[in-house]
């Protein structure tokens, strides 16, 4: 557990040292602020005291941002060889993965915490559904966990950051859009299956304020699956390398 935290700290520090963190936070706040307050179906257009516009923008921005955070985490370490250095220290593959997972999640949480002023502002304007807001945030965090899992897996299969980024987007796209489309095109149990696999199904019910254990388990299992696959790819060095 201690090793996980040491690795997470280092990753987080490298986010802030390399400006990635600042750029990501500024762009995230800028984009979501712009669409929440100024443009499109913003709060004033809807005329309701709700953070729904913010959540639907963040729904998309996280989809792009998280692969950008995770793409270098393993790919770069594999390319430069520092992974060898890390794994010959008394840490397991899992501890390394969990450390990186924690670091990415913490950065997302920091970005989300910085949007709390939105919440307070809307609260000041009108009667807000507090439950829905907190559930919305919970949904964001759960969804981020799933994306980070996918991102780490994508980063583990290549030495190239760009490939890792695109792979993560590609896999993410299935969960975000393609399963949804497929669900509408099929009928019967296949439709049910795709409907269940789609992120929007689970995200919507959470952001409406309904926290169902089914939805929580859905996000957590994507994250877990991503990490497990990443771990099995990492341990492949034991079989073939170079």
């Amino acid at each position: 557990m201690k090793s996980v935290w040491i690795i997470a700290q280092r990753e987080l520090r490298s986010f802030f040292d390399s400006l990635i963190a600042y750029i990501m936070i500024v762009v995230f706040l800028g984009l979501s602020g712009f669409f929440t307050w100024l443009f499109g179906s913003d709060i004033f257009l809807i005329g309701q005291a709700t953070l729904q516009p913010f959540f639907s923008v963040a729904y998309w921005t996280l989809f792009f941002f998280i692969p950008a955070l995770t793409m270098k985490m393993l790919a770069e370490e594999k390319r430069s060889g520092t992974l060898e250095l890390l794994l010959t220290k008394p840490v397991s593959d899992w501890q390394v993965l969990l450390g990186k997972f924690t670091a990415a999640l913490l950065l997302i949480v920091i970005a989300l915490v910085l949007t709390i002023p939105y919440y307070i502002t809307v609260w000041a304007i009108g009667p807000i559904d507090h439950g829905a807001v907190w559930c919305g945030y919970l949904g964001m965090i759960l969804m981020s966990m799933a994306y980070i899992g996918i991102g780490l897996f994508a980063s583990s299969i290549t030495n190239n950051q760009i490939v890792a980024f695109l792979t993560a987007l590609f896999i993410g796209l299935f969960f975000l859009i393609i399963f949804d489309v497929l669900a509408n095109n099929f009928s019967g149990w296949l439709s049910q299956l795709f409907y269940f696999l789609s992120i929007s199904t689970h995200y919507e019910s959470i952001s409406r304020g309904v926290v169902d254990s089914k939805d929580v388990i859905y996000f957590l299992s994507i994250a877990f699956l991503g990490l497990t696959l990443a771990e099995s790819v990492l341990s492949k060095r034991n079989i073939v390398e170079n």
Partner: protein
Amino acid sequence: MSIKVENLTKKYGTQKAVDDISFEVKEGEILGFLGPNGAGKTTTMKIITCYMAPSEGDVQVHGNSIHEAPDLIKKKIGYLPESNPLYYDMPVLEYLEFVADLQGVPKDQVQKRIVEMVRVCGLNIEKHKKIGELSKGFRQRVGLAQAMIHDPEILILDEPTTGLDPNQIVEIRKLIRELGREKTVILSTHILPEVEATCDRILIINQGKIVADGTPDSLRNKAQGTEVLRVQISEAVSEDEVISSLQELETVAMVDPVPLNENTFMINSQPEKSSRKDIFNLCVSKNWVLTELSPIETKLEDIFRELTTN
């Protein structure tokens, strides 16, 4: 801390990088790992450090198997990988602290160990810079510092002196020698004089197999077999007479005049005999002046070349 390698085999696909090698390193021994590129040195080191699993065989460090207690072994080993990978975006001190934390150095010891490593590796003037801003030699020192930060009982160094200038090389060799008094060290290198200068024992591997194992001296003796002397005799009547007289000596197997050098001969003695005394006595009796009599040592380079070219 002894290391015992037993029937280690590592396959990459169908190619065997390491082919059934066994050896043992005793506590306090400095083992030099020699071999041409791609001989399996790095692979063996990666297996001992628990980075890769072997296809077959086992490594035991102080009785602990790499299959059963990798974390225990990793704690006892300080490892400097071949290409010296480092986090270039981290400052030196921060990086050393990170490694110390990961290695489980107690909190109150961390700063003391870092100061010690900065001193030993001569990092003082560069310690606040980012690693990416350092020259290759200083990066190598950072690599060594991180390998030794937790005062490991075993040091595994994959080509530790690459990129260092001659002064630094001498310092690092001296450091390795000093460390080798209490620690077990395995180092690989291409530089043969380095092995002679630092190692107690040499292991030469070629195409995944051990082809030689022993002290530098014993390897030399084994490879040489017979004594070879370079002899210069002046004041003799003719070269031919000298050659024929030398040839008649019981202990001499063969005499060759050295081209371009007058009165100089290469003399091979009979196996396991020395002809030095006889040559001297011959010169005395004939009233020749013996101006040179030097044994020719087989160089480690020659042994290496002989064993690793097919």
